[in-house]
């Protein structure tokens, strides 16, 4: 699943709802009741089973999957975040050539 382009519309097929666990189960999504049995007032999502219900709050209706992401959120590219150097490489990388040159780049 490409979480960067998550679309809740029926056309995408992401219609499966997560299981709602009983209060205190401590896994998946609990709606309205925290892991310790107290009312939370809003849905709470947490991603690792067995953890207490102290995870981040999410908007109602977005709790579709433990891997869900808020639409529009930025996701780091593979290999980690790129350094914000300000430098820009060429659009096309240089290639080797054996033809006569147009100009010379020599050290000055």
């Amino acid at each position, binding site marked *: 699943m490409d979480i960067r382009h998550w679309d809740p519309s029926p056309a995408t097929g992401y219609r499966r709802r997560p299981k709602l666990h009983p209060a205190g189960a401590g896994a998946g999504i609990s709606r309205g009741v925290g892991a310790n049995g107290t009312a939370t007032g809003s849905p709470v999502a947490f991603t690792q089973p067995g953890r207490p219900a102290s995870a981040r709050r999410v908007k109602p209706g977005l709790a579709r999957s433990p891997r869900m992401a808020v639409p529009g959120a930025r996701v780091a590219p593979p290999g980690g975040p790129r350094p914000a150097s300000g430098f820009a*490489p*060429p659009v096309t990388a240089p290639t080797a050539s054996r*033809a006569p040159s*147009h*100009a010379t*780049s020599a050290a*000055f």
Partner: protein
Amino acid sequence: MPAGTDCPDAHTPAGWTALGASVQFVVTDPARLERGRAMLASELAAIDAACNGLRPDSELALLAGKPRHGAGPVRVGPLLAEAIAAALRTAQLTGGDIDPTVGEYSGPGRFPPEAASEPELAAFFKPDPGWRQVRLDVRARLLWLPPMTHLDLSATARAWAVDRCAGRLAGTLGCGVLVGLGGDIAVAGQVPAGGWRIRVQDVAVPYLPEPRPTATSSPQPRPKAVTIVAIYDGGLATSSRSARRWRVDPLHYILDPRGGIPAAPFWRTVSVAAATCTFASAASTAAMIRGRHAKEWLASLRLPARLVALDGRVHTVAGWPAAA
């Protein structure tokens, strides 16, 4: 067919210099060459008059002589304002590796005497005031310089100039344009078949054809002094410790702003391709200063580069063709 394909630089008059470097000019449409050459000559003359610190009558040189009362700004011309902005931007990009405030040591009469001993040279160089203390309002063309600070744009002005000229000429002429000043080259507009072919040259080793093996001797591996790469956009720049160095080895002309002394030699030549020649020149010069860490730094920036070590070994990173 691009003008100058069969005879490199055939359409660039010999002895044409600007900002202290020889000019190279190639267009993809020979019919527009003369008009382009006249435009380029006019552009470069204006830039030279504004930014050439080696000319005592340039706006930059005269700036050093202007009285600065307190922290008040001085008004500069539009070209000099752009060139200073490019220099400050380069200083920011390189984390201060290329600092325009090393100008205290450059310009007429500011280099150490040729006969200076190493202790005298060490005493001559001292830390610079730092680019962060320079303020520039590009729109209003107001410049704030700390007292006793002189600007040296020689590390950035040529690259900025070729970027500016190539872009303007390509837009006006409606064809592909290559503009080069010394080792700094920028291309814009239509790309000739096979790309813009650039001869990258390590000036430390004279170019000679490969020797043929004989019955009594086998050919010895030799550093490849010259290579040709094709670029398709942006710019390419080469920096080296091999040219313009002072008499006392290993000192040379690239200053490390942190200590105000020439950078410790690690690479003989560094060539970089980037989206602009300003980027390429900044990266190649900063790589010379960063020494052994330059290769990883250039790779992290995804800038194709060719680095020639002091022993002549060639290293390539980030997509620079390995065979070149």
